[in-house]
């Protein structure tokens, strides 16, 4: 971890310090005889890229800038909301990345990545030049219909994990038996397409065992959703009549919301919630906008390298980038982080790109603690296009109406994936 003292040590020790006296801005100059890659954002994409870059290119100086000392994963946060796991289960830190891989981890806020001077500008004014930068800013929310910044204190989105996860979990715990849990689910594209439906499933599991007279209403801003058949099969089997899913066309369309009273106006009348989980529509994280990396809501990239199409030497990975058929998932971000790191490690020493790179996504969802379902895909990056290799028979969903053994096995694999994925990113 880097505090002010060790930051200054880097400034004075390994690099030359240039200091603009009139502005008071100090600059962390590029190391001599070394390339430097600065990675902004320490989630699934950014932390993976940092670790793998050091594996592929041990001589490169890798700086990972992440404002938080602890990282809470969205995957498995639904198990915390439903009381199956404590919040510490999804808490991870950067200590091993520092000690084992010699990555310089800085807990600082970044103002922007400035491609015109190949430098990252911190909120505190410090400037960090880079040879290459990787930006993994995740998502931000679009606030509208009465849901504003601050509304999450009353109607949690719990779609960035941590405090929000705990808040929604507590609200659920405090809800009376016979209450109504309402989720507003966003329109596409958004982070983790099956996430809202796994959450509803595990909330139903909690309610069935603790508050069996309660109801769940999903007001969906679209007409269909990821793994829909498999989820609905599981809901029928495990939570008969508890979950009322309303598509945007048939009663789900939200006109406005009052997060304090938890009353939602739909085009089919009012819905009153005891607990309201409002998941707003989404766009790339603010840093991507402030750094000029965005076209519309998301960041266009070169599909073989993940280099931004708008700013040279800056690579965008994870939920913020436009990766064609790849869903905005933690697994995708991990896969993209590895490929971006590999390609950058080759570009830095003038080796040809690995061509074509292959990527993957595997996504498990829990319908109950012992009932797992999955979807997977394999991708190949072509010129200007990431291709889903389903034409080769790759990928697909869990079978419908499979026996209990298969569902139980997939629930176990879901837990196995999480353990190994965390170790692949943070250890």
């Amino acid at each position, binding site marked *: 971890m880097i505090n002010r003292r060790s930051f200054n040590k880097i400034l004075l020790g390994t690099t030359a310090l240039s200091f603009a006296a009139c502005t008071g801005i100090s600059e962390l100059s590029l190391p001599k005889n070394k390339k430097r890659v600065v990675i902004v954002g320490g989630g699934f994409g950014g932390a993976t890229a940092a670790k*793998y870059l050091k594996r592929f290119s041990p001589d490169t100086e890798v700086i990972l800038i992440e404002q938080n000392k602890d990282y809470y994963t969205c995957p498995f946060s639904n198990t915390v909301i439903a009381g199956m796991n404590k919040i510490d289960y999804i808490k991870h830190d950067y200590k091993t990345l520092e000690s084992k891989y010699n990555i310089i981890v800085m807990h600082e806020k970044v103002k922007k990545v400035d491609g015109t001077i190949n430098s990252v500008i911190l909120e505190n004014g410090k400037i960090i030049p880079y040879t290459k930068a990787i930006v993994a800013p995740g998502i931000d929310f679009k606030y509208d219909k009465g849901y504003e910044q601050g509304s999450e204190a009353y109607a949690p989105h719990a779609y960035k994990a941590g405090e929000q996860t705990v808040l929604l979990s507590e609200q659920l715990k405090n809800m009376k038996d016979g209450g109504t849990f309402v989720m507003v689910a966003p329109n596409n594209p958004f982070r983790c397409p099956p996430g809202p439906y796994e959450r509803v499933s595990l909330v139903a599991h909690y309610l069935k065992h603790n508050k069996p007279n309660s109801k769940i209403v999903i007001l969906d801003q679209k007409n269909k959703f990821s793994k829909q058949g498999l989820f609905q099969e599981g809901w029928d089997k495990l939570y008969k009549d508890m979950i009322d899913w309303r598509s945007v066309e048939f009663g789900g369309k939200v006109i406005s919301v009052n997060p304090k009273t938890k009353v939602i106006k739909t085009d089919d009348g009012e819905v009153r919630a005891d607990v309201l989980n409002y998941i707003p529509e989404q766009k790339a994280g603010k840093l991507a906008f402030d750094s000029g990396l965005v076209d519309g809501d998301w960041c266009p990239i070169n599909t073989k390298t993940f280099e931004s199409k708008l700013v040279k030497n800056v690579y965008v990975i994870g939920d913020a980038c436009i990766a064609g058929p790849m869903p905005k998932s933690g*697994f995708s971000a*991990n*896969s993209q982080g*590895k*490929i971006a790191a*590999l390609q950058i490690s080759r570009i830095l020493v003038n080796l040809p790109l*690995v061509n074509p*790179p*292959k*990527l*993957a996504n*595997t996504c498990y969802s829990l319908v109950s603690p012992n009932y797992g379902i*999955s979807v*997977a*895909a*394999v*991708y*190949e990056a072509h010129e200007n296009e990431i291709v889903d*290799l389903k034409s*080769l*028979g*790759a*990928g*697909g969903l*869990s079978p419908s109406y499979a026996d209990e053994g*298969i569902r139980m*096995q*997939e629930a*176990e*694999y879901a*837990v*196995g*994936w999480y*353990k*190994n*994925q965390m*170790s*692949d990113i943070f*250890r």
Partner: protein
Amino acid sequence: MKKLGLLLLCLSSLSFAAEYDPVKGEMLSLSCTSCHGTEGKSEAITPYIAGMGKANMYQILLDFKSGKRTETMMQKHVKGFTDEELEQIAYYFSSVKR
């Protein structure tokens, strides 16, 4: 003559196995390690595949692809790779120390 025969034998056996391309092998393995752990060193229920014998692993992957061997997840992934790519993956994991 004996020597020539031996040479021919070596050459012909080489022609059955693709040469290991470490860059490609490692690149392709990156998709596996998200579930099986970095370098295939699983810490969970997902099988530990680091250091598996190359021929054995390659055959298992081919069997998943042909449907001879079934499981909940593997066939969905292996079908996205050519046989040559699966062989490179097997080479890579066999080269990792257990």
